């Protein structure tokens, strides 16, 4: 935010950066080769719901768009709300269909942005899992245009597997733009798609 905007107290909503999401399939190959993590086929988008009819209408459009393939065997998206009041849309594909999953996520983004709700986008999640059942999510921060890994301990409880997260960061540096500021790696406990 510029000096003048701060001085006049008119912070503007931050626009999202949507393009980096398409780097996920290549990162998935690296993750599998280097650490044995395979995509689960689950991906989700999180956004702050806006009050009023306009946003509800856009939300309906987005769901209709993603469910267009349901008659031909696709799985319908699941909508949910978390404890913080944010909305989540969860898309399911088979693990091999990672590019299709990313397309779905991107469709949500561009639909929201096209209707002027781009600033409401919070983050996107793509789920991975290894043989031992350790979940891992690549979380995409729209406002930063960067990813960070989030790996909750499989044993449950709100504990992060930080060594693994840092290992993944070192691994994916060439494939994705990663969030360098560790204080922005906020936990998304119990997020759909983990």
């Amino acid at each position, binding site marked *: *935010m510029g000096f003048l905007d*701060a*001085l*006049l*107290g*008119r*912070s*503007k*909503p*931050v*626009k999202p950066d*949507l*393009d980096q999401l398409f780097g996920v399939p290549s990162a998935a190959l690296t993750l599998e080769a280097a650490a044995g993590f395979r995509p689960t086929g689950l991906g989700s988008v999180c956004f*702050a*719901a*806006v*009050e*009023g*009819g*306009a*946003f509800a209408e856009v939300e309906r459009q987005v769901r209709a768009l993603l469910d267009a393939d349901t008659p031909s065997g696709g799985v319908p998206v699941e909508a949910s709300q978390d*404890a*913080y*009041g*944010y909305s989540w849309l969860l898309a399911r594909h088979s693990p091999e269909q990672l590019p299709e999953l990313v397309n779905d996520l991107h469709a949500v983004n*561009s639909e929201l*942005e*096209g209707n*002027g*709700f*781009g*600033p*409401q986008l*919070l*983050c996107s999640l793509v789920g991975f899992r290894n043989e031992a059942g350790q979940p891992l999510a690549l979380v995409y*921060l729209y*406002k*930063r245009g960067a990813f960070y890994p989030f790996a909750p301990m499989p044993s449950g409880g*709100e504990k992060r597997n930080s060594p693994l997260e840092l290992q993944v960061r070192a691994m994916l540096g060439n494939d994705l733009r990663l969030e360098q*500021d560790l*204080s*922005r790696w*906020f*936990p998304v*406990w119990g997020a759909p798609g983990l």
Partner: protein
Amino acid sequence: MSTSGQHSRFAPDRGLTGRMVTTMFLIGLVYVGFTGLLIVLLRGAWPLIVLISGGLFVAQFWFSDKITERAMGAHEVTAEQYPQLHGTIDRLCALADMPKPRVAVAVNDMPNAFATGRKPEKSVVCVTTGLLRRLDPEELEGVLAHELSHVAHRDVAVMTIAGFLGVLAGAMTRIALYGGMMGGNRNSNDSNAAIAMIIIPLASMVVYALSFLLTRLLSRYRELAADRAAAQLTGRPSALASALTKVTGQIAAIPSKDLRQAQPYNAFYFAPALSARDAATQLFSTHPSLEQRLAQLAKISGELGH
């Protein structure tokens, strides 16, 4: 992907910006006038006075986070202690693309929240336990977004600089009165010095009153701007409005001893501890009236509806 032609759902409030600019200009004008007067009347002595009050000002500005935190009995809390509070701030910071401030809680049943710190990286957002107890998650989010907007707008810096004139004028009055008593015994033959001894306290008092009214006015505009930014960030002006009605309603019912205790920190608070009843009180108030704030939020809510 192109973002050109994309429209924003939020219309800027040019009237509010204009009023704020005018107020800041007037404060600056009083500043310049007062400084000029001091230089003319005090000649050699003014650098010393400016130095002393400048030092006070820098200290107040530099340690604003620590000072306010300590005065309010706030202590920093971890994500393990207050997961919901931290989680909400995490998400708001990610939405607004700003660094996460430190999070503190004050054990106090008066429902309120404040933000302090001279720059976003050094800021603290504090809520009272009374606020956490009374608000729903969505209302709490609205209040926290309001506080984060204060951080983003650097309101502590703006209000400290705007308020410094009052501090300087107050200090001048005291120094001049004290100096007048001391100087009376020694050499009172310099007529210029005698005039200065009369004019400086008088001018200082006028400047103090003027800057007091102007900073309060500016503070009210900054509050409206923070409400507006919070509504844009969360997309839920009504949740913030509901939080406001809860918080201000509760404050009216609290005994006055606590209220007096809390008064010096009103400027950094989410809602003032004293409710303004009529136009005269409104003039001295750091916060706009509840009706005014609700009206603005209702307008934004209307804009979002279609």
